[in-house]
Structure formats: structure tokens, C-alpha cells
């Protein structure tokens, strides 16, 4: 009896002590979460230097973690460089390669991309670990990994969803020397769209399918338009400088009258309007500010005129919004205004084409505007950044330099035909005027799906009512712009 009572007493108090210990130890700090600043850690590493005469020299040098250095030529001196050089891949040190790279993707790699990743691993000995997350969960997963100190080294910053919000909150600015940001290979135009206070959050290479797949184009099949009695193709009009809204309207109208099918279908109608060069919101990377263009009378007039074009198409029953690329291939619509993702034959948009000429006969032209000379290429930027707390920033720089390079993904052989290639190169050229479509991300950052509501209302409105619709949403856009500006000014130091 006494033993039983003693056992009960001891077990009760042991449980109490255990609970107290757990409580106090749980209250102890678990360690600091990395703040925005990179921590510095010096370590020695071997760097392979390519000398001017083509020979290589291995030198030991100390480096700062996250700030890597690279030597390009000379006699092995440890000078920081901001350009890559031709044999950059060989300059990746073994220390960096050993760490491996963690890439967070929203889809599986395409064949060309997979080949590029495998070749990178082979050349550098650096293992690439890829985590594929459905795009809807991308932000949550990224934030979880960062909080869990398992930050990915490479993340995709789709401007639609992640600029400025997630990019500024979860990614670190790219270091000028680690990424050799002065190198001409980088697409400064796209990278400026994710730059604030002189700090760039994402990398992009000019002309790469991987980050230039959300520029807007107009697709069509010549055989389908010819059957509808259209003799001059949009490509020919573009080549002769006559491709504009009116020409597109006439083609759509002729097609509709002959076939009773939709003249033109849009993935996103705001692309058709933004080709005028003025979207609802503009981003100025030099001042790191977003601007509501409705506040400027002359820009507002341009926007009203641009949206009137859609209204004109809508009133004549010539256009529709659609995600179905197969309709174009069946001849169920005359033209399709959508993203340049479809130009890459690996993405198989036109894999099931029943029109004469097959998939290889598809042609593209830039989105028209009031006149060809005044046309801008509307685009959403897709850049690649580095998450906060990433363990191998230098490895990420090498990986992105290699992975985004069109030469490494067999891109030249992936176009449907030479015309597609020509137009894609035109719209992605640095000299081509472009409109960065940032309104969606800014407005939706504050209120989810609000931009879609605005777009739908503008599309459905009569020409005379467009100004009224814009005025009614002006406060919403202003508020969203202010919120975005506040986010950038407070989060980017």
C-alpha cells in the first residue's frame, strides 16, 4: 500500500517536473532567423582562373559567403569581375560545386531544360536538387522553406504573382559581382522590372524561352485565313509596316463574315490594349515607384483609346477570351493573341492541329497598335532570383547563367519555323519597345482577383463608357499603387 502510494506520488511529481522542463526549454530562443542582411563567413577556396593565353591556374583565396569572387584572366590575381567571360563554367570552384544547388520550380523541366541541367551537373560536378511545387502553392512553399532554413537557391519570379510582394519579402538582391551584372548577356530590360533602389531581385537572359515566354504575340494559320478569303497575311502586313489595329480588325471581320467563327481570341485582353505603350500602371525602376497612369490626362486618353479597340471588336462580335489553343489548330478562330510560350514547339500548343499545313505552318506577329511604328510589345516579366537565406548564392549565379542561356537548351531547333523565330527574336530584342504589364500584380497584391474584375468590366463596356469604368476603378488602382510603393520603400533597404 505504502509502495503504491509512493509510486503514485513520484509519478505525479515526475510528470509535473517534466512538463516544467518542457515549458522552460521551449521558451528558450531557438536561434535567430536570418535577417535581410547576408551574414559573412570567410573561408578559403580554390578558384580556377582562365589566363589570357587559354591556360588555367588554380589559386587559393579567401572569399565571403554569398559574395563570391571570380577571376577572369590575368595571372591569378583575385580581382572582382562583373562580366562572365567565355569559359565561365570552368571558373566555378569545387567548394561551391560541393554545396549543390536547390531549385524551386512550379513545373517539371522540359526536355531542353532537363538536358541543360544535366549538362550543368556534368560540367561542374554540382548536384542540382529540384523541388517541383504546383504554381498555386509556390508562394506558401517558398515562405515555408525560408522559415525552415531550407531556402532554395533559385526561385522563379513571375511578375504577375510575385512582384513586388513575394519577390521583395522572400528574395535577396542579386550581388553585382556574384552575378556579374554588367555582363551584356543579361536582359537589363526585364531585370529593371524587378529592380528597386538600385537592387535587382531577378536575373534574365535576352531571348531565352525560359524567361521570355510571357511576351504577347498573335498566332494564326495561313491556310485558315486563306480559306476565309484573306489574301494578305498578318506577317506580310507586319513586314511591310502596315500591321495595326485596323488591319487586325479587318482580318477578324472578314474571317467572321465568311466563317461565322470568332475573328480573334485573347488569352488576356489587356495585352491588346497595352500595346499602345501605356498600361494602367507603370513601374519606374529608377525611382522605385509605381504610377497610376489614370492620374495623367494624356496617358488616360491613350488608355481609353486602346480599350476602345477591344470594345470595337467586342461590339462587332469579333473577339472572345479563351484559354483553348486547340481552337486555332482546328480552324475555329482566325487569330489568337497569347503569350510567346507557344512559340516553343516543346510546349506542344499545336501538337494536335487539323488544319492544312500542320503545326509547322503556324505564324506569329507582334501585337498591333494604332500604327506599327508606335507599337510596343506587351509582356510580363519572368526573372529568376535567389531566396533569402540561400546557402549557395554563387552556385545559383553559375546555374542561372548556364540554364537561362538559349544555347544550352537547344532553343534554336525548337521554333516551328523561321518566321516564328524571326518574330520571337524581334519581340525579345533589346531595341524593341516594350510595355511591362505590372497592373495585374499591383492591383491583385492588395485585393485578390480585383484586376480580373477591372479587365472584364473594361472589355464588356461600350466605347463611350470606358472612361466611366476607368474613373470608377481609379481609387482602387491608386490605393493599390500606394500599397505597392509602401511595400517597396519599406522592405527594400
Amino acid at each position, binding site marked *: 500500500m505504502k509502495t503504491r502510494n509512493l509510486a503514485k506520488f513520484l509519478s505525479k511529481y515526475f510528470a509535473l517536473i517534466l512538463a516544467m522542463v518542457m515549458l522552460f526549454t521551449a521558451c528558450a530562443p531557438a536561434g535567430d532567423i536570418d535577417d535581410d542582411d547576408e551574414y559573412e563567413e570567410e573561408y578559403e577556396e580554390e578558384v580556377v582562373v582562365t589566363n589570357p593565353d587559354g591556360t588555367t591556374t588554380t589559386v587559393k583565396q579567401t572569399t565571403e559567403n554569398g559574395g563570391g569572387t571570380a577571376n577572369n584572366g590575368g595571372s591569378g590575381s583575385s580581382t572582382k569581375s562583373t562580366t562572365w567571360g567565355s569559359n565561365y563554367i570552368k571558373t566555378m570552384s569545387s567548394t561551391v560545386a560541393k554545396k549543390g544547388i536547390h531549385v524551386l520550380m512550379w513545373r517539371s523541366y522540359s526536355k531542353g531544360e532537363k538536358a541543360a541541367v544535366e549538362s550543368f551537373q556534368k560540367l561542374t560536378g554540382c548536384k542540382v536538387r529540384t523541388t517541383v511545387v504546383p504554381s498555386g502553392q509556390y508562394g506558401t512553399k517558398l515562405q515555408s522553406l525560408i*522559415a*525552415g532554413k531550407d531556402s532554395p537557391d533559385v526561385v522563379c519570379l513571375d511578375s504577375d504573382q510575385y512582384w513586388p510582394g513575394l519577390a521583395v519579402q522572400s528574395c535577396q538582391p542579386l550581388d553585382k559581382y556574384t552575378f556579374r551584372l554588367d555582363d551584356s548577356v543579361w536582359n537589363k530590360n526585364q531585370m529593371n522590372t524587378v529592380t528597386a533602389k538600385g537592387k535587382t531581385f531577378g536575373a534574365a537572359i535576352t531571348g531565352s524561352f525560359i524567361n521570355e515566354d510571357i511576351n504577347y504575340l498573335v498566332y494564326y494559320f495561313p491556310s485558315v485565313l486563306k480559306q476565309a478569303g484573306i489574301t494578305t497575311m498578318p506577317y506580310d502586313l507586319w513586314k511591310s509596316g502596315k500591321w495595326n489595329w485596323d488591319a487586325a480588325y479587318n482580318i477578324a471581320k472578314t474571317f467572321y463574315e465568311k466563317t461565322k467563327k470568332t475573328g480573334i481570341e485573347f488569352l488576356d485582353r489587356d495585352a491588346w490594349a497595352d500595346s499602345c505603350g501605356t498600361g494602367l500602371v507603370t513601374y519606374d525602376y529608377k525611382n522605385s515607384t509605381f504610377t497610376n497612369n489614370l492620374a495623367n490626362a494624356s496617358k488616360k486618353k491613350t488608355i481609353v483609346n486602346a480599350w476602345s479597340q477591344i470594345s470595337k471588336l467586342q461590339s462587332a462580335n469579333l473577339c472572345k477570351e479563351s484559354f483553348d489553343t486547340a481552337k486555332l489548330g482546328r480552324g475555329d478562330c482566325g487569330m489568337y493573341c497569347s503569350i510567346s510560350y507557344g512559340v516553343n514547339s516543346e510546349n506542344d500548343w499545336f501538337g494536335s492541329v487539323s488544319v492544312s499545313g500542320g503545326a509547322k505552318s503556324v505564324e506569329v506577329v507582334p501585337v498591333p497598335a494604332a500604327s506599327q511604328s508606335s507599337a510596343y510589345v506587351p509582356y510580363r516579366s519572368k526573372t529568376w532570383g535567389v531566396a533569402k537565406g540561400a546557402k549557395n548564392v554563387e552556385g545559383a549565379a553559375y546555374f542561372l547563367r548556364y540554364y537561362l542561356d538559349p544555347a544550352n537548351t537547344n532553343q534554336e531547333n525548337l521554333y516551328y519555323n523561321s518566321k516564328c523565330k524571326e518574330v520571337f527574336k524581334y519581340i525579345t530584342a533589346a531595341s524593341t519597345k516594350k510595355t511591362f504589364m505590372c497592373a495585374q500584380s499591383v492591383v491583385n497584391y492588395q485585393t485578390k482577383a480585383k484586376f480580373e474584375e477591372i479587365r472584364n468590366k473594361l472589355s464588356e463596356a461600350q466605347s463611350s463608357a470606358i472612361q466611366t469604368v476607368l474613373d470608377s476603378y481609379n481609387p482602387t488602382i491608386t490605393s493599390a499603387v500606394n500599397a505597392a510603393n509602401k511595400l517597396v520603400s519599406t522592405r527594400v533597404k
Partner: protein
Amino acid sequence: MAKEKLIIPGAQQTKSKLSKYQVQKQTKSVLVSIFRYVLLISVGYIILYPLFALIAYSIMSRTDLLDPSVVWISKTPSFNNFKNAWLGLDYLNGLSRTVIVGVVSAFIEVISCAVAAYGFARFKFKGNGFLFALVLFTAIVPVQVIAIPLYLNFRFFNLFGLTGLIGGIFGNPEFVFDLTNTPLTFYLPSLFGVGLRSGLFIFIYRQFFLGLPKELEEAAYIDGAGPLKTFLRVIIPSSGVVIVTVSIFSVIWHWNEYFLSVLYFNDNLPLSVSLTQINSRLSSLGVTFETQQGNMAAACLLFMLPMLIMYIFLQRKFIQSVDRVGIVG
């Protein structure tokens, strides 16, 4: 003498009144019957339409999918979509992962929720009501709200700091278990009654146990059984119907679980996540898919198949249990 027909004044009138009433009653019955069938067929069509569409699209070949005249019945049926779906889902690995993570976790939850609910139903202790309210609260709060803390909990699993205390003795005070990417992220919450929809299951069990006669337990206590033995020998055998109900719901919810799977796992994903990535996977495997619809439809059917088979076998018990437990939907 001729038999005189007895004539009751008004009798003729009464007979016709009855006929009228009968006719009305019959007409009403027919109309109600027609209305009932129309309603059931309409609702059935709405519920079954997606399934019929999936079956129809899954056996359509490329030609059929492009042919506008083909709506339901395929002209050139083909099972190529199933082959692509099997490949894209990495079906066997995905299925084994789903069973290991989801189904096992579901069965752990069925047991743990029963234990918790019995405590709430039969034992009077301070804070019973408050704790039960908290249990219901866990069922109301969406998991997305607590996603990051949940992730961190498993990423730095330290048993309220105990691992740090023990690790400190051996020179590593920051020692923690990283449970992410393991099935323990589902097993542990299920074991402690805070898994998927555990609050709801505890509520269902509790309501059922409250309805059981106390005399059963009293008889067990008189025979010298303790609470645990009573629970195992008396309550559980009497709770077959509610256990079947909760099991089916739990398995199906774990089978469909998507958000937490994406959060906790980086690779070896269960089928629910693979389903969303099938087209990009097929593209990366070099499979030039004809159109996405057929592959998706076939993939959805493959995903649903194990649950359909389970339901076919447990259908009778499930209907009985729903009837007795009173759970709808």
C-alpha cells in the same frame, strides 16, 4: 317475391364522392411520383455528369478529341490516355506513397479520435466543455491559416525543447528532428487527435457514445473491468457502424489531401499532387500528348479508382452506418 333493392337516399351520391376522392388521390400520387423521379434524375445527372465526362474523354483518341461531332461516344476509342496517365502520375510509386502516408494516417486517426471522444463522452472532469470547444475549434480553423507554424513545428521538431536539453548534455544544444518529407508529419497529428478533420471525427464519435446505454459500461465495471478494458471490450464492439463511417471519411480525406502534402513533401509526392503536375511531367518525359483533356480524364479516373473499389466493398455497411449515425454528406 322479388327481392327489393334497398335504396338508401343519398347513397348514390356518396359513392360518386368516394370515386372522385380516389381519383384525386391517385392523380396526386402519380404526379408526386413523376416529380420525384424528375428531381432524382436531374440531381443524379448533375452529380454523375462529371464522372460520365471523365469516362468518355479518357477513352477518346486524338482524332475524337479534335472532332466536334464526337461528344460522348468515341468513334475510335483508345486506351493511350491511360498509358500516358500511368506514366505521368508515376502511378505505382504515387499509389504506394499515398497508401503509406494517407491511408495509414487515416487508420491511426480513427483509433485516436475514438479514444479522445470516449473521454469527452463518459468522463466528467474540469474543463471538459472548454476542451471540447477547442476540439471543435480545430475543425473550424482552415489549415492554410496555420501552414507556416505547422511546417516549422515539423521542420524543427524538438518536443518542447527536450531534444535541445538532451542534445546539450551531449554537446549539441541545437539538436532537432527534421520530420519534413517523412510520413510522420501526418502520423503524429493523427496519433494525437489533431490530424485532418480530427475535430469533426471526435464530435461524431462523442455523439455516438453519448447515445450508447450506460448500463453496458456499468455491467462491465461491476465485473471488475477498468475504463480501458470497458472501452476495448464493450464500447468498441458496439461501435462498428460509427467506426466504418469515420474510417471511410478519414481515408477519403487523406486520399484527397493536397495542401499539406505540398507543404511537407519535396519529392515522392502522393497522387493528389502528381495529378496537378501530370501535363508538365509528360512533357518532360518527352511524351507528346495529343490533347490535355484525355490525359487528365484518364489520370482522374486512375486516381479515383482505389476509392471506388473501396466504396463498392463497403457500400452496404456505409449506408447502414450513415443511417444509424445520422451523418449526411
